Every structure is written in C-alpha cells, then in structure tokens.
C-alpha cells in the first residue's frame, strides 16, 4: 500500500476539512471557554459529527457505521486538531469502538448504533496515576456471584464526566504489573458506586477522576476474555496513540499555517520577518519535522489497518514523533509571533495548550521512546 492517501481517502478529507472548519473552528473553542462550559465540548457539534457519519467511521456497516479504518479516523482527527475542536471523538469513535470490536454481539448491538447516532459518548478509563502507565493495572475486579465487583480509581479520563460508557481496565488476577490477569469492562457511568469528578484542563477540555466503590457488573460487561484483556488493551492503546498523533498533526499544522502567514505579513526593521534567513531555516526545519511526523502517523495507521506485526511499534513511533514535531511547532509559533502570540486575544496560545494536553495523553515522547527501547530489547 503506498504511503499516501488514496483517492477515496482524499475525498473524505475534502469533505471533513470544510465541514469541521465551519462547524467547530477555534472560535467555537473560545466561546465554550468564555462560557465556562461545564461539559467542555458541544453535544450539538457531536451530533453534527454523527450526522456526517464521523462517529461511526470505524464501526462496521452491520452496526450502521462507515466501516472504515484508522487512516480515515486519522483524517477526521487531523481536522479536529487543526480547528482545536473540543471533542470526545478520540475516546469514543476510536478508543471505545476499537474496544467494542472485541466484545460479543450483544454488547456491540447495545452500544455501537448509539455511538453512530451520536447519542452516546464514551471514554477510556485506563490511567491510574498522573503519568501514563497503562501497563500497571491495580483497579480490582473481584468475582462476585455471576459477575464482578470493581473497586479502585482511574484518572485523566477525557470527558469522563459526560461519558455514557466507560471502558475500564481492571485487575482480575495477579499483581499490578503482571501481563496477564487484566480484564476490560464496559461500564455505564450511571452504575451504582461510580463517582466521577471532572477538572478543567489548560486546553478547555475536561478530564475526570473516576472512583469505583464496589461497583457491581455482571459477566456480560466483560469485553473479550477474562484475564486476557491485555492484547485488546494494547490494540486500543495503539489505535488511540496513532489517533492522538493525527490530532497533534492537525494542531501543529494549524499553528504552522498561522505562523507562516504571520511571517509573510509582519514587518520589522522595514522587512517582512519571513525574509530573515534565521527564521526561514527554522521554518524549513519545522516543515521537515512535520512531514516526518505525518509519514510516521500514516504508517502507523496503515499498519493498524493491515494488522501488521509492527503496528504497536509504529504507533509508539508515531505518538513520540508527533509529540516532538508538534511541540516544536507550537513553541516556534508563539516565539515567532512575539508578544501578540502571548495574548489570550490571539488564537495561537490555544494551540500550545491543546498540544500539551494531547502530547501527554496516552503517553508522551519520553514514555514512547522508552517503550520503543523496551520493545527492541535494550
């Protein structure tokens, strides 16, 4: 498969780009922020996404979705990133849908159509500390009658306070760091014993702490195999990592585009500042980094769609590279804009904030570089 978008994917991109730019541009984020919106995203925009089929991009056609792949999900995410649209898309349409692929037909039938329709928002509850360490799962799920009783806490659950469905990784046997003994559950947020408290993040989005105090679920809430959830968890993580890389790419491209415009307009010392060679070289270097990140992300998504052996590695590379490239993009954007870039009135600061949140989500560059080293045995 050639490493560029095929004609149908280009067509999708041509549809998504103007739609999101019109429906939920940066001004939309600013309006939510100024209103101190408690949800941190707009249900109206979410339903509009559903109307376009975006929420079901990865859902198979039998459940009303488009039946497309990670590459196509990445196309949507890139535009979400470029417009800084606050959206539970990554957790719902990529993370939860990918998890539910491994669920039985009953569970799929109960959730997927409602995700497609835009009725349901979902969230991944995987982290148990402020730093992404999904390989350690301590939240306990003990056998209880026909089902399980879950106790413990998760954090950094994006939009968890608004989610109808929480996908939770839990420990059904062994110790926190064990490979085996992990089970994934589909947990309705309104289940008794679930407490969700959300905090605003720097980028206006909301992330929740989820506490489970003896939450009872029956066996039908298990996604995949009891004790055998690690493989599904890893697959879900790789998909959302690649997805986050696409969203970061969009954020970076958005910030870069603003910066290039500014370089071509702003005059200092009688010259357009984009004519200064030092800035030109930095802009060219940044462009190169972004192109590399784009290639790495597309590679990961193609690998995931093809079921390649290197998919997990490619996803880590994509997330790590996107983290570096987009970090450079927003830092250069603020610096090259000078004072105006520091003002709240100007949009560029929002790009820096969103980049930071996404860079952290599902593991930052440091985490993935280390993971890559462990995967490659050094």
């Amino acid at each position, binding site marked *: 498969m050639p490493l560029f978008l095929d004609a149908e994917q280009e067509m999708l991109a041509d549809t998504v780009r103007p739609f999101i730019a019109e429906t939920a541009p940066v001004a939309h984020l600013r309006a939510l922020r100024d209103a101190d919106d408690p949800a941190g995203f707009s249900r109206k925009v979410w339903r509009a996404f559903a109307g376009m089929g975006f929420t079901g991009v990865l859902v198979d056609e039998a459940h009303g979705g488009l039946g497309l792949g990670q590459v196509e999900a990445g196309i949507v995410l890139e535009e979400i990133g470029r417009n800084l649209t606050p959206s539970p898309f990554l957790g719902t349409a990529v993370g939860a849908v990918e998890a539910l692929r491994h669920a039985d037909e009953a569970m799929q039938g109960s959730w997927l159509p409602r995700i497609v329709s835009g009725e349901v928002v979902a969230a991944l509850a995987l982290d148990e500390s402020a730093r992404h360490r999904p390989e350690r799962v301590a939240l306990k799920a003990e056998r209880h009658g026909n089902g399980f009783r879950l106790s413990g806490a998760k954090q950094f659950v994006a939009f968890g306070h608004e989610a109808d469905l929480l996908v939770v990784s839990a420990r059904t046997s062994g110790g926190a760091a064990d490979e085996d003994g992990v089970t994934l559950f589909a947990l309705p947020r309104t289940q008794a014993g679930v407490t969700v408290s959300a905090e605003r993040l720097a980028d206006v989005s909301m992330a929740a702490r989820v506490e489970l105090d003896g939450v009872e679920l029956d066996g039908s809430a298990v996604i995949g195999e009891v004790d055998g959830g690690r493989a599904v968890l890893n697959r879900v993580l790789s998909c959302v990592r690649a997805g986050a890389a696409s969203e970061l790419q969009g954020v970076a491209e958005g910030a870069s585009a603003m910066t290039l415009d500014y370089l071509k307009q702003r005059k200092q010392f009688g010259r357009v500042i984009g004519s200064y060679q030092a800035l030109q070289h930095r802009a060219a270097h940044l462009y190169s980094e972004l192109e590399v990140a784009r290639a790495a992300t597309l590679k990961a998504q193609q690998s995931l769609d093809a079921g390649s052996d290197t998919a997990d590695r490619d996803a880590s590379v994509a997330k790590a590279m996107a983290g570096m490239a987009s970090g450079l993009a927003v830092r250069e954007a603020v610096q090259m804009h000078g004072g105006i870039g520091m003002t709240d009135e100007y949009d560029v*600061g929002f790009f820096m904030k969103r980049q930071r949140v996404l860079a952290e989500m599902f593991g930052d560059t440091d985490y993935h570089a280390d993971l890559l080293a462990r995967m490659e045995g050094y």
Partner: protein
Amino acid sequence: MADDLEQFRRDTRAWLEANCPPEMREPVRSEKDICWGGRKWTFQSEAQRRWLEIMAERGWTVPDWPREYGGGGLSPAEAKVLRQEMASLGCRKPLESFGISMLGPALLKYGTEEQKQEHLPKIARGEIRWCQGYSEPNAGSDLASLATRAEDKGDHFLVNGQKVWTSYADQADWIFCLVRTDPAAKQGGISFLLFDMETPGVSTKPILLISGNSPFCETFFDDVVVPKDQVLGAVNDGWSVAKYLLGHEREMISGMGGRSLGPSLPELALRRAGRDEHGRLDDPVLRARIALFEVRSHAFAAMSERFLDRLKAGSVHPAQASMMKYLGTELNKDRHELLMAAGGSEALEWDSEASHGGAAARAWLRTKANSIEGGTSEIQLNIVAKRILELPEA
C-alpha cells in the same frame, strides 16, 4: 580593607537581626508579599510598611545610590555584603521597583540635577511607582519604528499614541516613555519622556495572557500634555537613554534562568513522577533529559556568577548582557517544559484547587514570554553576532 568589610558585615548582620521584622524574614509565598510601593499601594501588613520605612531611612532600598538622592552610598563590595547577609537571614527585599532597577540608573546618568532631586528620593522611599512605555503594536523588536508622537507645542509636548506591554501601568504613578519627536528621523527622532499617569488623556487596559491574568496593559495617550522639562536626556536623543536602560533590564531578566531558591528541578520532578524500583526517577528518558538539563543549569549558575563578578569588576563586554538574557530565558523555558513532563496529567489542570489554580501550567505558559519580552532571543543573538563576534551586516 578586607577587615573593614568584615566589620561592615558584622554590623550589617547585627542591624538586620535587630531590625528586620520576623514576618519579613518569611519566604515570599505570593505576589502580595512583594512590596511595590507607590501612591496606590496598600501594605499587606504593618511589618511590610515598617520594613520599607527603616530600610529607606538608611538608604538601603537602593544601597549603592548616592546618599544625596536617598541611597545608601555603599561601595559595590559593601552592597554585595548587604545582599549576602539579607539572603543568609532570609530578609525580603523591602521594595521591588522599576524605578530602582530600570529608571534609576538612567536618571543617574542622564538626568538634570533637578530631575534627580525630584525623582530619585521618591523612588528610594517607594513613594512613586514607575512603569515603562516602550513597545507598540507595530514596534516590537524594531523599537525604533515606534509611532507614538510628541508634538512640540512651545512650552510642552502633546502626546498621542498607544503603548503595549506596559507592566503594572494600571498601578503605576508615573511612566517613562519613548515617543517620536521627529517623524523624519528613525532612531534619531525619539525622545525619552517622564510623566504622571494621572495626567488627563492617559488610560490603560489590562492584557489577558495565555497564562491568565498578567501585569501587562495597553496604555493609550490622547492629547496628553507633558511639560518640556520632563524630557530625560536631550530631545531626539531618547534612543541612547533607552539602550542604556535596556541593558539594565536584560541583566535583571538574565538572572531568571539561574538556580532559584526553593526545590530544584530534580526534586520537583521526583515529587511529581516518583521513583522506579531502582530508586531512579520513574521515567528513564525524562530522567536523562533532566540530567542533561541540570548540567546546563549548574553551568549557567556558574556563568551568572562569573557575569556578575565581571560586571562589578567592569571587565565584561556590554553585549554579554544579551547573551545572558538569551541563555537564561531559554533555560527557564526548558525547565518548565521538563516540569510539565514530570507532572503528567496533573500538571495540565487549569483551575482545580489541587493544582493551586493551575499553577504549573500557568507558570509554564508564562515562561514562553521570557524570550520575547525585554528583547527577543533573536534580537539578542543578532546583538551577540554583531557586537561581540563582529560579523558583518547582511
């Protein structure tokens, strides 16, 4: 002479121990603990007022200024001893002030005797708080292109225009301000004016930053009348005054990247990220990046010490202030990037109580301005290239 200095040290220490109120020896915890003075100032405590008064009485708010202008008349060596003893006893600075750190040196160098008599003692006593009017929306790095006009109206100037990035303009009493007095010349048509912020026609509007509230304002001048004796230096020679003053500002800002008091980066990172089973910071790649940063941070602390020592000895190239500003601010930005990485998702919180109102994220964002304000990093590199390395103009 070394003996005299030792005697001075003993006397100073004794005096500080006897006179500095205990509350003024507590670490500074918030903005409010810093005393800026001025007509609008409300002292946070009786101790804060007393500490300013008795220090001002000795001239020790400005220890190395001449006594006749309210200073302490100390030699550089004595002033260093005073700083050291205050640091060692944990005494707060009695007064923070742009009048002291920026305008004062320029007044001492360029002011008329009347101007010095008028302004310096009030600065020293914290009676008048100053702000700075340099940047304009279309004159950022290229200050010389500023457009705020001061028309010569015989016995006064009539000032019209707009400034940005005037820190604390809404709380300041007077402003020192670059204005264009000759529209035909560039740098040669700029003058350095001093005037009261209560003069009719002056208004201010706070600037909200990406990090939240800020001390910065936009400041507008609408037919502001400024008497002609309120020019510092010669008319159309404001550029010299401004450059002299900017040098001082850079020295001040360049201190920021140094190793501050309080917990070190590794300590903070350990608190946030914890240790792995081998006792190392629980993220091997972050640990390596922090270690490499700490090499730079320690080395920069040595550089700061060397720069200040040579500054005092008069042996430093003046453009090294630009280098220090560049290095210090870039290092400070890196430091906060690493702190954010160490903090993980908790450092992303924006207004939760646990995060102290998003302190980590806001501080991180605020550092991004370090390499813009007071001359961008690019400008500092230009200066080093041209003035120290003597590389040719394009």
